C-alpha cells in the first residue's frame, strides 16, 4: 500500500427508532393451489400415471409385438406394403389383461396365496434365525475387542458373497428342502444386520452413554434402554437391507428347487409355469414377488420408520 492511499471514513448519519406494527390486512396471505396442480404435486398421483402408461405400453406391445420390427424391415427393404397385421405371441409375451386375469384367477383359486404362504414361512424362519445370530454376534462384538475384530473379519468375508452362491454347498449339506433354503437366507440376513447394528452401537455418542450410566443403568438394561434405541436408525436400515437380501435370495433359491414336502413356494410357481409354457402365470408370479416386496418395503418398513426414527428426528440422510 502506498502512503497516498485514501482512507475512507464512514459518514455520521442520522439515528432513528421506530415502532413496528403488524400490518393489519395483507390482502391475501395464502391461497390454495388449483386442484390439478395439487394433484400433480402428490407423488402417488404421478406414480399412478406412470403405472397406467406402462400398462398401456405393455398391452399394446403384447397385442402387436411384430409391428415395430415389421415396419423396420419394410423400411430397410424399401417396399412398404401397408400397415403390418398384428400377431400376438402369448407364449413369449402375454398381454397385460391376460396377466391380470391369470393373477386374479391364481389368487381366487388359492394357488398363489398357498405358494406365497410357503415362501413367507421360509422367509420368517430364515429371517428370525438370522436376526438371533446377528444379536449374538453383536453382543459379543460390543463387549470385547476380540469380538469386534471377529465380526468385522467375518462380515468383510461373507458380505460380498451373494448368499445364493452358497446354495450348492447347502444342497450338499442339507439336501433338497427347507433347511437348505433357510441356510442361504440366514447367510443373506446375518451379515448385513450384524454389520449395521454394530456400526450403529459404536456410533452412539459418548454423552448419551454417560448420561445413561449416571442414571444407574448397567449391563443388559443399559443395552436395551440406551444403546439399542440410540442405535435404532442403523439397526432399522440393517433390517431393511437384510430383508431385501433375504427376499431376493429366497426367490432365487426356490427357482433352483422349490419342492419341499410336495408343495413349492412362489419361485417354484414361476418355474413350474415356465415349464408348462403358461407365460401369463409366470408374469403373475413375478408380479406377486414385486407386490410383496413393495408391501414390505413401502408399507411395513415405512410405517415403522414414521412411528420411530422420523418421529424422533433421528433419520439421517
Amino acid at each position, binding site marked *: 500500500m502506498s502512503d497516498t492511499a485514501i482512507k475512507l471514513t464512514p459518514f455520521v448519519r442520522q439515528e432513528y427508532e421506530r415502532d413496528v406494527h403488524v400490518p393489519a390486512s395483507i390482502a391475501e396471505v395464502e391461497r390454495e393451489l388449483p386442484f390439478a396442480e395439487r394433484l400433480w404435486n402428490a407423488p402417488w398421483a404421478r406414480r399412478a400415471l406412470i403405472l397406467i402408461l406402462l400398462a398401456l405400453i405393455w398391452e399394446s406391445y403384447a397385442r402387436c409385438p411384430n409391428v415395430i420390427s415389421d415396419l423396420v424391415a419394410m423400411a430397410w427393404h424399401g417396399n412398404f406394403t401397408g400397415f403390418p397385421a398384428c400377431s400376438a405371441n402369448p407364449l413369449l409375451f402375454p398381454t397385460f389383461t391376460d396377466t391380470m386375469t391369470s393373477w386374479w384367477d391364481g389368487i381366487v383359486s388359492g394357488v398363489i396365496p398357498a405358494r406365497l404362504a410357503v415362501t413367507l414361512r421360509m422367509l420368517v424362519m430364515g429371517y428370525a434365525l438370522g436376526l438371533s445370530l446377528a444379536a449374538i454376534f453383536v453382543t459379543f462384538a460390543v463387549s470385547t475387542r476380540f469380538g469386534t475384530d471377529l465380526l468385522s473379519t467375518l462380515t468383510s468375508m461373507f458380505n460380498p458373497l451373494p448368499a445364493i452362491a452358497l446354495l450348492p454347498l447347502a444342497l450338499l449339506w442339507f439336501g433338497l428342502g427347507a433347511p437348505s433354503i433357510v441356510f442361504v437366507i440366514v447367510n443373506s440376513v446375518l451379515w448385513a444386520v450384524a454389520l449395521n447394528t454394530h456400526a450403529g452401537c459404536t456410533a452412539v*455418542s459418548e*454423552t*448419551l452413554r*454417560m*448420561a445413561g*450410566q*449416571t*442414571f*444407574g*443403568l448397567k449391563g443388559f*438394561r443399559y443395552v436395551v*434402554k*440406551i444403546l439399542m*434405541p*440410540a442405535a*435404532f436408525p442403523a439397526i432399522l436400515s440393517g433390517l431393511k437391507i437384510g430383508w431385501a437380501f433375504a427376499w431376493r435370495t429366497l426367490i432365487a433359491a426356490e427357482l433352483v428347487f422349490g419342492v419341499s414336502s410336495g408343495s413349492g413356494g412362489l419361485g417354484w410357481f414361476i418355474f413350474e409355469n415356465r415349464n408348462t409354457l403358461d407365460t401369463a402365470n409366470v408374469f403373475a408370479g413375478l408380479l406377486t414377488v414385486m407386490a410383496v416386496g413393495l408391501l414390505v418395503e413401502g408399507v411395513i418398513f415405512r410405517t415403522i420408520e414414521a412411528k*420411530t426414527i422420523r*418421529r*424422533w*428426528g*433421528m433419520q439421517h440422510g
Partner: protein
Amino acid sequence: MQQPRVVTGVSSVPEPAGAAPLVRASSVTLQYKTPDHLVTATYRVSFDIFPAERFVILGPSGCGKSTILKAIAGFLKPVEGEILLKGRPVKEPGPDRLMVFQEFDQLLPWKTVLGNVMFPMIENKVPRSDAEKRARDAIAKVNLLEFTDVYPHMLSGGMKQRCAIARAMAMKPDVLMMDEPYAALDALTRRKMQDELLQLWNDIRFTLVFVTHSIEEAVILGSRILVLSPHPGQVRAELNSPGFAHEARGGAAFQELVQKISHMLFGDRAGSH
C-alpha cells in the same frame, strides 16, 4: 481472603465449623490415557463442597476441570487421593450425582420432554404417578410446560439444556453437576439461562457443582469458586462470590473480582476477560 458473602437477598451464614462436607476431594490426582500419552489432568487437588453451595470449578482449558467432574460422577478413578460423597468413596456412576453435559445430545431422542425427565426416576423405581408429578413440577420450574409432549429434536439448544436440568432436578440428586452447560449457547440465551439457574437455586437450594472457563460466568453463578491452574490442574485459590444481581454486573465490585481472578490465571497478561 474476603468474608463469606451470600447471594443477594439471602442472609449470610458463617462457614460451617464442624459440619460434614457433602463432597470431599482430598489430594486427588487424575490421569487418563489418550492413544499415545498418559495425561495427568489434575495434581493433588483438594476441596470440600457443602450442602446448598454453588461450587464453581473455574480454569482455562487443560486444567482438568471436566475431568474432576467426571471423577465425582464416578467415570474415572483417582490414581492418588480419594473423593468422598457423604463420607463414602465414589466408586461408580449413580443417580445420586446427576450431570448436565455441554452437548445437546444428552437427551434421549426417542422420548418426549416428559419421558426424558421421568426416565431416570422410572429406572430407579420411583412409582410412575409419583415420577410424573415430580417431572411435571420440574418441567414447570424450567419453563418448558408447553413443550411437555414434544420430542427433543424440535427443541432449541437452550430448551434442550433446560430439559436436561429438569431431568436432573426431578431426580433430587445429592449433587447436581453441570459441565459447561451453556458453552454452546448464544450469548443472549446464556445470560437468560444463568438467571434462570440462579432463580431455580433460590427456590430449591440444591447443591450445584458447575464447571466453566468463563470468569464472568463463575462470578455470576458461584457462591464459592475453585480456581485451577493448567497443565496439570492444581488449586490456585478458593474464593467467595457475593452473588451479583443483574444491575451489579459490570459494576466496580464485580469488575474487581473478575480482575482478581484474571490476574491469578493469567498474571500480568490479564485483560478484563
